[in-house]
């Protein structure tokens, strides 16, 4: 379960606060996954006490934009901390998808990778297994073309144009996978839509925790 409570002394109406919160959910709390399971209790409440001086009335104003950016930062920070505490996690993984034909497709691909047990266990095993990423893209249901697909780990491109990049360094890729924080990037080469989501690896510890703790 994810529970989030954010407090601010901003002076803003409930309607405007709700608009700001709603449009920042997609890039924060709805852009994370630990185990692809959704709780029955997930809740976010944002409370603005109105004690700070200037009222935020116009959502197009500079002050409103600055407030929204700050609130968005807090939301994303908390969302990432939830992933960092993913049960049994030893790796924090950012999945960046670009070049999708639509926003929906970009999200499908990103979450197919982020929720893939095979990708997540490869990360746990420090294996730069780009083949599992190919499989996740393929199963996602999004439009994809094998021969346009580009896959990277960190700043290394491991596969493109339907093939393994012939001269990529397996030693360098393996060394990269030892980092605690990893970036998996996929360019679909079809359009301009993009989506970034965050996940963690899947380790033996996840099973230990969920076999022990009966909640």
């Amino acid at each position, binding site marked *: 379960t994810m529970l989030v409570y954010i407090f601010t002394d901003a002076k803003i*109406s409930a309607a405007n606060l709700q608009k700001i919160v709603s449009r920042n959910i997609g890039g924060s709390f709805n852009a994370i996954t630990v185990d692809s*399971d959704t709780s*029955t209790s997930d809740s976010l409440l944002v409370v603005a006490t*109105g004690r*700070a001086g*200037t009222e935020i009335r116009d959502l197009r104003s500079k002050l409103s934009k600055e407030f929204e950016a700050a609130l968005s930062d807090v939301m994303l920070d908390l969302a990432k901390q939830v992933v960092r505490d993913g049960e049994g996690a030893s790796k924090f993984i950012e999945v960046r998808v670009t070049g999708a034909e639509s926003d929906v497709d970009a999200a499908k691909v990103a979450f197919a990778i982020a929720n893939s047990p095979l990708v997540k266990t490869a990360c746990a095993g420090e294996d730069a297994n780009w083949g599992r990423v190919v499989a996740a893209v393929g199963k996602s249901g999004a439009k994809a073309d094998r021969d346009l697909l580009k896959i990277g780990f960190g700043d290394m491109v491991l596969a493109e144009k339907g093939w393994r990049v012939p001269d990529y360094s397996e030693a360098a890729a393996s060394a990269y996978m030892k980092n605690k924080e990893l970036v998996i990037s996929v360019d679909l080469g079809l359009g301009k839509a993009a989506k970034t989501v965050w996940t963690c690896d899947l380790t033996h510890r996840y099973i230990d925790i969920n076999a022990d703790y009966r909640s």
Partner: protein
Amino acid sequence: VAAAVKKAHDVSPLAPAAFPALPEIAGVSFAATAAGVRYAGRTDVMLASIAPGAAIAGAFTTSSTRSACVLDCQAKLAMTVPEGAGAAIIVNSGNANAFTGAQGQTSVDAVTGAVAEALAIPASRVFSSSTGVIGEPLPHERIVEAIGALKAGLAPAGIEAAARAIMTTDTFPKGATAEVATPDGPIRIAGIAKGSGMIAPNMA
């Protein structure tokens, strides 16, 4: 007590170095206590008391089997705010108050009603959440009994204790802050969260 308390999990290797220094937010105070909802000897209930005049927004899981607390919060956010009313948030760990039929709303009503009475605010402005085991009736009387202690402990600086009280399999409390400079002084933001498993939110 020691025998009843499960061994704490090691802290995640991905955890931040420390809980951040969160600013006090004028108009909010916090308290946490050990009510023994599921395990003895650990804080498991937090209360936030909110002064009149606050605006509240929310987002909740769209799960079709969402809990009584979620349904109650959604209904209350849609209501007109009574003039001059304060508000409160009460959260327990240890029991999710989910999938217990009508008993779920009975527990929500008992807890939020008791908070409303203690803080002299309308029950329609008391928002509750529960996290933990699913399918067991919430022993809400333990939370109700703890409300006096929670009220007595309310303090503007209590947000970290609140973050700790809502942990379940979490290995660290989560907090974040930001500030916006304005000519009339800063706008402060402080947030807390819990979450570690069953995480693939579909909030709206």
